[in-house]
């Protein structure tokens, strides 16, 4: 069963190209779903549509197997905690008063305010106004607000923005714990693959409003292995290609490099030896990072 299902979601701002182009999204219940894409890919627009902050133009959204509509909005929002883009914080109020605002709406016990402040490490902020918080502290307060009513689904848009490395690790561990111990489904967006892959079980990749990949993280890792390569920089790439083509038919010359699919290091050494023995100088052997960009390129081929 899926906590969120979006089908054929299309959105365009007035006088603009579509920001989202018929995307499908399925967030399995109990998963940590990483929603990955570069800035401007359409992540925030998708999340805003899922939460009803933007009026749906085309497509269907189902949350907990119910269509998200004005009729079901209130009951569904009771089960969702969210943090969209920059944290929403009343700068003239303390962290406690900020949370009391939402406690009154959610009607959760008052003691939850102290509990979630403790959970995100803001219990000691006392009467300090939230406007005087660092960006990281505001982000923590935003996460505390999202967790206040112990939701079944957390929707977090780039929640680690502004956090220092130890803060990022803390939040990551907190989200894992919430998912593991309370079974909360988490939809988290990011533009950093390295950050996401340490946390998520499932992943969706979006670029320029199009969904490029959706599935378990393991499947993406397999694709990344397929996308990995070894690059040789030689004095004569064309002759080098002719020499190894028979043994490695997928090899090709790209720009000024000879590219081969990822190989065991012994095989790389053997190729190097062969090229040198045939009088071709090898200036460098590199394994280009299979970063987000590479994967995008691979996925869009």
């Amino acid at each position: 069963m899926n906590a969120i299902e979006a089908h054929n979601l299309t959105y365009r701002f007035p006088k603009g190209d579509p920001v989202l182009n018929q995307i499908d999204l399925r967030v399995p219940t109990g998963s940590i779903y990483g929603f990955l894409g570069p800035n401007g890919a359409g992540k925030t627009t998708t999340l805003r549509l899922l939460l009803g902050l933007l009026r749906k133009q085309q497509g269907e959204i189902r949350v907990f197997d119910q269509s998200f509509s004005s009729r079901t909005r209130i009951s569904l929002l009771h089960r969702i905690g969210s943090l969209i883009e920059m944290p929403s914080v009343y700068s003239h109020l303390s962290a406690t008063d900020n949370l009391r605002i939402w406690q009154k709406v959610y009607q959760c016990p008052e003691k939850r305010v102290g509990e979630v402040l403790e959970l995100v490490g803001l219990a000691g902020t006392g009467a300090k106004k939230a406007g005087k918080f660092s960006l990281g502290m505001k982000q923590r307060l935003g996460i505390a607000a999202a967790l206040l009513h112990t939701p079944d689904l957390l929707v977090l848009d780039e929640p680690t923005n502004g956090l220092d490395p130890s803060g990022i690790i803390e939040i990551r561990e907190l989200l894992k714990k919430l998912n593991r111990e309370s079974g909360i489904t988490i939809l988290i967006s990011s533009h950093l693959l390295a950050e996401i892959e340490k946390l998520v079980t499932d992943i969706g990749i979006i670029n320029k409003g199009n969904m490029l990949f959706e599935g378990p993280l393991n499947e993406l890792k397999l694709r990344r292995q397929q996308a990995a390569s070894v690059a040789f920089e030689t004095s004569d790439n064309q002759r080098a290609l002719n020499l190894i083509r028979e043994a490695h038919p997928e090899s090709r010359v790209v720009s000024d490099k000879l590219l081969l699919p990822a190989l065991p290091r012994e095989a790389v050494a053997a190729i190097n030896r062969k090229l040198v023995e045939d009088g071709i100088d090898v200036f460098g052997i590199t394994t280009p990072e299979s970063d987000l960009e590479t994967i995008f390129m691979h996925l869009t081929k």
Partner: protein
Amino acid sequence: MNIPFLNTFRSEWLKKKGTAAAWLVVIGGFFIPFIILIGRVYYFDSLAARHTDPNAWVAVFTTCWKQMAILLLPFGVILATSLITQLEFRNNTWKQTHTAPQRLTHLFFAKLLVILIMLLQFFALFNLGVYLVVALPSLAFPSIPYPDAPFPFAMVMKWNATLFLASLPIVALQYLISLQVRNFLVPLGVGIGLFIASLVGMSWQYSYTIPYIYCSGRFLLAEKLAGTVDLNLWAAGYFALFTVAGYVLYIAKKEKG
């Protein structure tokens, strides 16, 4: 007690804690009475006679209300309504407010109710201030008697009700604009513009159609229009019109954060 509108109202009420608008209510409420008090104490020699005058209360209330209604009340309402409503834009909190499980209708009217209650608070503090203009000198100086004249309770209540009603079109239009426009200067600019228009247009034949004129009009127009135009009715009509328009525009807004 879990009544959804009440929950939303409590949440909205908490948001105004410590804001500039909340301070404006307190400072604005006591400002005119404080100035008048200083003036009366400055002319101390005539104070005892003023307190024994049969119209002691009426005179001080008339002076204070006139100063307040012509200038400070409209301006204060413009500023306070815009400040309170713009809290969400300023703090980037519309998205959190709109993803909390509360009805948009409740939100709209809870925010409006917060502003109206703050306006009532302002009126209460102002009346207390005017009372103190008379009571404090009598307490502080044995030579100044407490007025024998009965406190004109009915008159004070009537003025409060009339001027509260006169403020409502300003509240509703400022609220409408502040809900729609992110830039704080827009509602402020429109408000001040309409307020100045109401002062400039006071002598115009149809000045009673200017929605921001009813506070000052209570003192500058009422006699001229007596028996022909009901300013209360016009104020109530504008309030209803702007509130309905504000509600429709708010509900129909495509982007909610």
